[in-house]
């Protein structure tokens, strides 16, 4: 009995160890290939442009729509409460700060987990099934560097830009609700400009850089560890989305805490 328990405990720790070690090894591999970006032809412009289009340009409509609705919903909920005490004008503050600090960057990240993380995992998983990853390796090309960096750079460029679109759409959504509360567009806009500052906007956008890194790494990692069959690719894509949502939310909590130390 004791031996069996010992076995169970040791196998638990072994499994837990592997669970922790695997992502660390993966990140180590990716980071160790960073210098290769500066080698001749290390920077793959064509691939990066492809992902810039996939994760950036093609996400603009959905990001704009979702953030617009988010701003409107926030506005309605805020108005319902504020109306009780006759302070409807503070709806502008609440929508403005919530969108810039949280909902803009977070919604952009959530849409990217669905679009980018799953696509990255499925792509890398399928390449594994087709032995394309093995082919890269035996050509002497490091798959981690070859496949991760173009995606990472594209995400680091596109997510902050999407967040700007998201922020604008969110405030527009609030504005629409405001007009139904008898806050005219001009007054809404004037109040928005008066209460929001550049730093709030920039710190919100800066968050997306962290989200972009986490989503890309989670997507690629789940692709690389997917088992080499059709089901494995599907499972890899699913776990990429779940893992990146989890990481984004945890990171958001940590960043919000850090920002609070510097007074934002």
């Amino acid at each position, binding site marked *: 009995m004791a031996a069996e328990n010992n076995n169970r405990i040791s196998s638990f720790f072994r499994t837990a160890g592997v669970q922790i070690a695997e992502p660390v090894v993966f990140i180590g591999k990716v980071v160790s290939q960073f210098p290769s970006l500066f080698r001749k032809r290390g920077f793959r412009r064509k691939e990066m442009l492809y992902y810039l289009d996939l994760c950036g340009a093609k996400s603009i409509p959905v990001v704009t729509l979702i953030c617009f609705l988010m701003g409107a919903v926030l506005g309605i909920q805020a108005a319902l409460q504020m109306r009780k005490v006759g302070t409807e004008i503070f709806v502008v503050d609440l929508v403005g700060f919530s969108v810039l600090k949280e909902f803009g960057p977070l919604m952009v990240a959530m849409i990217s987990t669905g679009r980018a993380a799953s696509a990255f995992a499925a792509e890398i998983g399928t*390449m594994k099934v087709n032995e*394309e990853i093995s*082919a890269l390796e*035996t050509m*002497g090309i490091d798959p981690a560097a070859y496949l991760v960096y173009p995606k990472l750079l594209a995400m680091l460029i596109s997510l902050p830009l999407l967040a700007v679109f998201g922020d604008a759409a969110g405030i527009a959504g609030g504005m629409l609700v405001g007009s139904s509360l008898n806050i005219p567009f001009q007054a809404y806009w004037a109040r928005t400009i008066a209460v929001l500052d550049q730093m709030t906007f920039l710190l919100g956008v800066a968050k997306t850089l962290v989200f972009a890194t986490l989503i890309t790494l989670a997507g690629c990692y789940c692709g690389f560890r997917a088992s080499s069959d059709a089901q494995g690719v599907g499972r890899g894509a699913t776990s990429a989305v779940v893992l990146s949502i989890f990481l984004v939310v945890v990171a958001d909590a940590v960043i919000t805490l850090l920002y609070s130390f510097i007074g934002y």
Partner: protein
Amino acid sequence: MTNAKNIKLEIKDLVIGYGDRIVLQDLNFHVRSGEIFCIMGGSGCGKSTLLKHIIGLFRPQSGDILISGQSIVNATAEERRLIMRHFGVTYQGGALFGSMTVAENIALPLREYTDKSRQEIEEIVNEKLELVDLAGFGNFMPSELSGGMCKRAGLARALALNPDLLFFDEPSAGLDPITSAGLDRLILSLREQFNTTIVVVTHELDSVFAIADRVIMLDKASKTIVADGSPADLRAHSENAWVREFLSRDGLKRNAGEQ
């Protein structure tokens, strides 16, 4: 060791497996320069696993693999990548990169490792495509090619850097007899033209008798090499009854019947 220079690939006391499970052990063999060497065995005996170890994708549990005298097992990651540039691998399904055209696939190693101009690369790509009988297919996407064409395009990519050692993983798998015979002729002509050393993993008897100078046979039960020699010689004179049966027509029919 007077003939050490002639040995292209040497396997010493190799043990391979996954975790606690040993797949093959006590592997000792070598492949001479310019030889066509086949690794044979029934399904699931570890032929493809052995190949993946030889080309450096997996680490063996013990033993050594020397390619042109350099150990791929004990090499650092950077050294291993250097060794890998000197051989080509043709994978079962071709393993072409689906996001690139056939020509871009073949050009990739050239762009990666040479200073050749765009035009020089294009010339080499066309030359390699012609070599594998795919002239004019450069602008096709891999998904638009048939299975046999994908394999040949994969071969063209493997040949891009003019390697003197080539590995084939099941070249005839999934091909009709005529296409498969065409691929055999291609393998023979590569050796004739460039004196390329070729290692083939297969269980297609027709292919083996057509191209192989020497074969090793792997056995699932004893987990090691049970025969080593020329295929015709082994069929006639092997002491092992299973080997004779495998290599004879009867064995082939019985094997085909099992599948």
